[in-house]
């Protein structure tokens, strides 16, 4: 499965990449902000996007909306992975088309469960 990790923190990309590798997912690309993510999703055939929320240039929520607005990428599963844990924010992301939601801090088990929920 081809996965795009989106986070402005190199640390979080590294942690998630290691977690995914431990789960057997090794085809992983990275994007550093929302604009980078939108461009890569449009250009590549990603089966899953793990998207941070608070990033410079373009936020994860804005990127999610852009991905959902494009017929080519509208169906790409996007899991928000963020420290934004208020219910109102989660609802905002779901209404914008988020497939699922992971709140930081999280354990590898949480990521495993979210992937399993997608049938991955």
């Amino acid at each position, binding site marked *: 499965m081809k996965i795009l990790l989106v986070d*402005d*923190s*190199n*640390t*979080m990309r*590294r*942690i998630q990449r*290691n977690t995914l590798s431990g789960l057997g997912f090794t085809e992983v690309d990275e994007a550093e902000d929302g604009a980078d993510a939108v461009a890569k999703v449009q250009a590549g055939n990603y089966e899953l996007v793990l998207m941070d929320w*608070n990033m*410079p240039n373009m936020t994860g929520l804005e990127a999610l909306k852009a991905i959902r607005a494009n017929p080519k990428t509208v169906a790409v599963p996007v899991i928000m992975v*963020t*420290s*934004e*844990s*208020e*219910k*109102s924010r989660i609802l905002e992301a779901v209404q914008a088309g988020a497939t699922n939601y992971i*709140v*930081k*801090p*999280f*354990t590898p088990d949480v990521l495993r469960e979210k992937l399993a929920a997608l049938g991955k």
Partner: protein
Amino acid sequence: MRAELINPFLKATVSTFSTMVNTSPTPGKPYVKVEPGLTHDVSGIIGLSGGAKGAVIISFPSGTALTTVSAFIGAPVTKVDADVTDAVGELANIIAGAAKADLSGLNVNISLPSVVVGTNHKVNTPKDIPSVVIPFACTHGDFVVEVCIALTESK
């Protein structure tokens, strides 16, 4: 200062370290910061705005920063470099984000993280906003979380 403004940051620090840094930090007794404050080597800073203003700052001695970040990223680090500053900024971000959820009635906004590196530096906070220092001890060493927070006038 109201404890309900400080406790979310204490809880969020324990939760973040327990979940992502493989250690359960023990908080000491919080105290109101009196100048001159403590000195540090690496500090991650998140600004607060919206319903409350101020900042939350997590500060480490360099040795504790290295062992903490090594556990956080799952690989040893031996010097305070860009990886360490990024990781400390992300820790500050996760703690502030988790605390924000407990302060949800206040509609607090958090900034992107900034990180200060420098032996024995101090982080000055606005004099008109009280600061509470929460000391922590964990298997990686001692560190502090400083919470400088006040409700905005509309609250």
